[in-house]
């Protein structure tokens, strides 16, 4: 099997990882599409050096998170604030709605920093502290501390909306 075909099959099998990261990091559909393309490109560039030392999914997470974290645009903060405000407003206006908590949690996650989002993302996908540490490059203890802080932060933000 050619390298290209092998890559496409592996990416196709794990494309939800990329979608998930794009959705977590960006609000605008066009931005998400751009990020998706950039992650694919970064993965393809790095695939020649992928040595099966880790699972393909772990490697793809690493590539995708590195790309998402350094995705740069002027005025990102402005757009983020708008998205967050809109989500908060929707939550406030639909108190009885079943999706209140999900919107509040999503709005809260939107407020996290790029690195915090990366850690939450990995945690949500059941990665162990050791694996999170290996992907992000920080110690296991630091991961535990960060996760605890992030959870507290998320709780305090979601409380404000509900």
């Amino acid at each position, binding site marked *: 099997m050619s390298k290209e075909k092998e890559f496409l099959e592996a990416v196709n099998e794990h494309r939800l990882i990329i*979608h998930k990261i794009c959705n977590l990091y960006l609000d605008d*559909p066009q931005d998400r599409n751009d990020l998706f393309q950039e992650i694919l490109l970064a993965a393809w*560039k790095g695939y020649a050096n992928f040595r099966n030392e880790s699972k393909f999914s772990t490697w793809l997470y690493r590539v995708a998170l590195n790309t998402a974290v350094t995705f740069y645009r002027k005025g990102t903060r402005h757009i983020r604030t708008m998205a967050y405000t809109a989500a908060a407003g929707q939550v406030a206006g639909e108190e009885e709605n079943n999706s209140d908590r*999900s919107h509040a*949690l999503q709005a809260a996650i939107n407020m996290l920093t790029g690195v915090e989002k990366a850690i939450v993302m990995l945690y949500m996908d059941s990665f162990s502290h050791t694996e999170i540490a290996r992907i992000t*490059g920080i110690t296991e203890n630091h991961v535990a501390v960060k996760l605890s802080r992030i959870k507290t932060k998320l709780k305090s933000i979601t409380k404000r909306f509900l």
Partner: protein
Amino acid sequence: MELEELSEMLTGQTTPGERIGRLSNHPAQQPVTVLLKKHIMFEMICLIVFIVAAIAALSFHTNRTLQLFSGVIIAGSVVFGLVLLRLHRQITYYETNTFDTAAALRALTRLVSRFSRLYLEFSIGSLPVIYVLGLVAGSHDVYALAQPGNFNWTRGFITYTACYLCWSVGIIIFSRWYVKKMYGRYTAALQQLLTEIENG
């Protein structure tokens, strides 16, 4: 809702922010490495234009002063071009090898900071060379005059040095502004991420 449930939702969601996002402007957005490589390519194109112009000046003019300056521009551009090429290759290396997030951020921050410093050093370091060259070329032009004995050397030297100082200040201000505009924002963004991942 727990984080795990949200994870499932994120794979195919439509957020309220998405609707707002559609209404907002859509400026180009790319990874820092790609943007940096684009800047490097732009600078390399500028250098090629400089080199071609300098070669043309060297070929079509017989004025020794112009030829001397053209030669210096060609040599300087070639050296700087090699530095840019090296930076481009190093960025490509970080793109094609998958490091953990902290290591990738650390390497890129170091690379961009080092290059910014080098750029400034190169600009400032070329100033004394230009001063001496200008002095030599100016003297040569004076001796080429019909009556060099009538030339006021002290006044000429003071005028030349004053012009040189104004020009040097301009170059330093421009270089600092350019480096900050081109690379400063990326260094700041990368540094912020690095601080956050290491200490936050």
